[in-house]
């Protein structure tokens, strides 16, 4: 009896997490806690960073069996094995791996987005395009570093899109092994936009430029708003079919919103559905950053590179948007405030608010927000297009 008891306790102890914990586990647990802290105390994009960080925490408590990276590292993936041996997070991760969750998040984002400022001033699209230099510049940077494959470089580059679901979607297709660090970097830098952008904005513009008060936008009719998602879907998907899941769902969500006849669906797309998907997506994406997965040699260097390249991506995107804004300032004879260019990186709505704040500091009468929303939402479409291009060329 006593022997049996000791034996049972011993067995439980051997099956406990303490028996298997390594330094890497411990470091990743600490990092997860730091991200939880940033999400809660600093409000760093908490809607996704909190689930991501908690998923990372759970995946790094050894033997929890919630996520099995080895099931996902094989090619082709054995879905039957996942059903038999997968843990809770493996099963939820199916929604990421199969490319279902990011488009559903785009559906909700579309239902929440007002493209009015963009329709009122379609030239904003140029700024939304210019800011994508951040993506392609980073791609060159990542290739130059030499420790990434082409696909990995493409996935890292998309951090410059400053758009979480796009980054997760493209990374899950090109380089799922980097999903954790890329998602963490993308959301962290998106939260840091108010810190990263202002110095670049001040360095690249003159006070006179920042003081420009832009003309009020013309009102946009309901019909124009309804036609926008339909026509943009047709055009973009015809040119670039690879962007169909993201652009199609974004525009469907927007059509729900603007049509005004499916209020029920609109409401659910921007609440219950996007929230459920966000919880599952965040948890499982975070869980890919597990010690089991990251203990491969060279990972430390890769993670460090991603952090640096991500910062590069945001900075280049911001700068190129601003410079294109300056170009428009000159071309229009001073009617365009170049500060709205930096909003082209997306990071909706933070980047547009940063434009507003910096503009108002230069000139308290300056209300740039609505003008910056144009490039801001154009940046979302721009980075979805960029993701499609990268997937077409590298996938």
């Amino acid at each position: 009896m006593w022997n049996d008891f000791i034996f049972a306790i011993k067995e439980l102890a051997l099956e406990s997490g303490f028996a298997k914990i390594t330094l890497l586990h411990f470091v990743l647990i600490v990092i997860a806690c730091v991200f939880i802290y940033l999400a809660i105390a600093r409000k760093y994009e908490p809607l996704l960073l909190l689930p991501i960080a908690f998923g990372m925490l759970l995946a790094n408590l050894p033997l929890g069996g919630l996520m099995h990276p080895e099931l996902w590292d094989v090619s082709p993936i054995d879905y039957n094995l996942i059903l038999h041996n997968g843990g809770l997070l493996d099963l939820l991760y199916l929604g990421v791996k199969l490319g279902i969750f990011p488009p559903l998040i785009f559906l909700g984002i579309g239902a929440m987005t007002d493209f009015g400022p963009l329709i009122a001033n379609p030239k904003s699209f140029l700024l939304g395009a210019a800011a994508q230099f951040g993506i392609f510049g980073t791609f060159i940077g990542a290739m130059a570093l030499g420790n990434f494959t082409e696909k990995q470089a493409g996935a890292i580059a998309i951090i410059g899109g400053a758009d979480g679901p796009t980054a997760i979607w493209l990374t899950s297709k090109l380089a799922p092994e980097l999903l954790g660090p890329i998602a963490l970097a993308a959301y962290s830098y998106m939260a840091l936009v108010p810190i990263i952008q202002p110095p670049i904005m001040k360095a690249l513009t003159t006070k006179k430029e920042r003081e420009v008060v832009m003309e009020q936008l013309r009102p946009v009719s309901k019909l124009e708003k309804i036609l926008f998602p339909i026509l943009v879907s047709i055009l973009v998907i015809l040119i670039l079919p690879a962007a169909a899941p993201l652009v199609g769902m974004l525009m469907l969500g927007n059509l729900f919103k603007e049509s005004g006849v499916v209020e029920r669906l609109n409401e659910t797309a921007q609440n219950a559905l996007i929230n459920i998907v966000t919880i599952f997506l965040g948890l499982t994406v975070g869980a890919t950053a597990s010690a089991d997965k990251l203990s491969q040699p060279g990972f430390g260097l890769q993670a460090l590179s991603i952090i640096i390249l991500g910062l590069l991506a945001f900075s280049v995107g911001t700068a190129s948007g601003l410079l294109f804004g300056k170009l428009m300032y000159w071309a229009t004879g001073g009617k365009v405030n170049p500060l709205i260019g930096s909003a082209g990186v997306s990071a909706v709505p933070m980047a547009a608010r940063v434009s507003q704040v910096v503009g108002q500091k230069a000139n308290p009468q300056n209300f740039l927000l609505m003008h910056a929303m144009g490039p801001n939402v154009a940046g979302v479409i721009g980075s979805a297009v960029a993701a499609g291009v990268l997937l077409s060329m590298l996938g």
Partner: protein
Amino acid sequence: MDRAFNVALVGIIVVFIVLVLIILLIKLYSSLITWAGKNKGNTAKKTTIETKESNPVSESNHVMSVDNNMEIVAVITAAVMACMQGSSSSLRVRSIKRIGHTTPIWNIAGRNEQILSKI
């Protein structure tokens, strides 16, 4: 690295092409709408009326509900303000949620019927 530059170049060019085409698209259909709006002012009105006639039950219902909503917003705002006797600057009724959206419309209609039949 050549390949890298090539991918980046093609990428940014395609992004610009797509977004410029969207600009042209928007300009095109916006001006079409404006032009149509000026040209067909009267025709448009006619169409609206026809639509209403073809679907009288639902239309009237909708109009009614909108009116009701406006009325309710006004009433509640007025009530609260009258009671406050005060500044309206800091308070606006942001939105009134009509609960019972989920009630099938025909239940509502039934209730209306019962009410009317009592008069």
